[in-house]
């Protein structure tokens, strides 16, 4: 993984506060977990029915009945619980999920999220993503700042089908930390080695740049 991505993941890990119940989406978000202090009290939820996800297991030690929503073989911790899918989403919709970290195809300047469908190309269904995006108390996105063709993922308006409207609180990319505020996207931090101008130039949506020094990560 690139140094920039590693920085992004390390920075995102600081978003997790002691005592939180957190759901990490497949891909980059899952890797955040390795960056947490080992003694930090945090409860990882997976929508297929577990609170308290423990370390991923190699195939030869895996429990065939214990996976996370991405299909990875995980393990229980002392204090874990298993439950059915209705209870699992009750936890999400009922307000007990403090934070979710998700991937994105596009995030709009008003916090709309598109991450589940590319018409004609990628139509697998939304899974649990809609409820995570719409109902977690805090929704943060982990994504490369631009796609493979160099197009900004932070856009004025989503062109793809929405996962949820006005749901994103904060975006972590390999270039910046951006908050979605009522006034629009605000540039909060810039990656070490980049300038504010680099980020603004790489972003489709107009960024609000606060006065004074922008912190680096």
């Amino acid at each position, binding site marked *: 993984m690139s140094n920039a991505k590693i920085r992004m993941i390390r920075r995102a890990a600081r978003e997790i506060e*002691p*005592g939180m*119940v957190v759901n990490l989406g497949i891909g980059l978000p899952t890797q955040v*977990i390795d960056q*947490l202090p*080992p*003694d*930090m*009290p*945090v*409860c*990882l*939820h997976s929508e297929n029915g*577990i*609170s*308290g996800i*423990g370390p991923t297991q190699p195939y030869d030690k895996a429990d065939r009945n214990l996976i996370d929503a991405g299909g990875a073989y995980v393990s*229980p*911790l*002392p*204090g*874990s*619980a*298993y*439950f059915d899918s*209705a*209870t699992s*989403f*009750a*936890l*999400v*919709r*009922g*307000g*007990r*999920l403090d934070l979710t970290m998700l991937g994105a195809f596009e995030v709009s300047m008003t916090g709309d999220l598109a991450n589940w469908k590319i018409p004609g190309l990628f139509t697998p269904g939304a899974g649990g993503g809609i409820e995570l995006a719409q*109902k977690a108390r805090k929704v943060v996105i982990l994504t490369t700042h631009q796609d493979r063709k160099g197009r900004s993922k932070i856009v004025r308006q989503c062109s793809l089908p929405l996962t949820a409207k006005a749901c994103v609180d904060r975006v972590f990319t390999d270039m910046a930390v951006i908050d979605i505020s009522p006034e629009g996207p605000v540039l909060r931090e810039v990656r070490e080695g980049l300038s504010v101008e680099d980020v603004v130039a790489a972003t489709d949506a107009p960024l609000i740049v606060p006065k004074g020094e922008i912190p680096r990560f």
Partner: protein
Amino acid sequence: MRFQDKTTTIEAAIAEIPNGASVMLGGFGVPGTPFCLIDELVWQGQTGLTIIKNDANETGMGVDHLLKNGQVARLITTHIGLNARAIEMMNAGDLKVEFCAQGILAERIRTAGAGLHGFLTDIAIDTELAEGKHRVELDGRISMVETALKADFALLHAEGADPFGNLVYAATARNFNPLMAMAATQVIAETETLLPIGAIDPNHVHTPGPFVDKVVTLNELTKEYAVVQR
């Protein structure tokens, strides 16, 4: 990684409840009723409460202490036949009582816990409980809307709990407890035994820890928890 420790004292847990709060209480008759948490609420004396509980216990027990002490403005329940004081207060206009069919009360609480707005049912459609209910016609069938019922606090009784708030209930003491655990902003569980973290098999947890905010360990059970000899 480890889990948050949610243990606290009964005084501190109940002190969070302000006057005028809505409070769900677990229990169907004696089993599952959080008598010690109720006693502390009586002691602290918060008033103007909306109480949500399957029943009003019996005279001299549980909810009845709150009624006698004048702390309850409103009771949402299914059956108060074993509490003469509750019926008297209701008839005298000193207590506002809202009756639900029992499974509908359970489901309204669960619906709030599941983050949904309400559900559609034909239960009680030809009875006086149907009065004033919003109706919807779908596929030629008439349903009534039952709204989600949430509360500021839920007070639960568990047989066992770990410090993170994973709960297990004993036999028919389960009843409304796991539903209320999902449906309140602050969930306070009293437990007969505080178990070390990891002592509950993850397959046997009845209420997962993320639903619970505070765990209070009982030193001893008051006589209200005992077998009632009528």
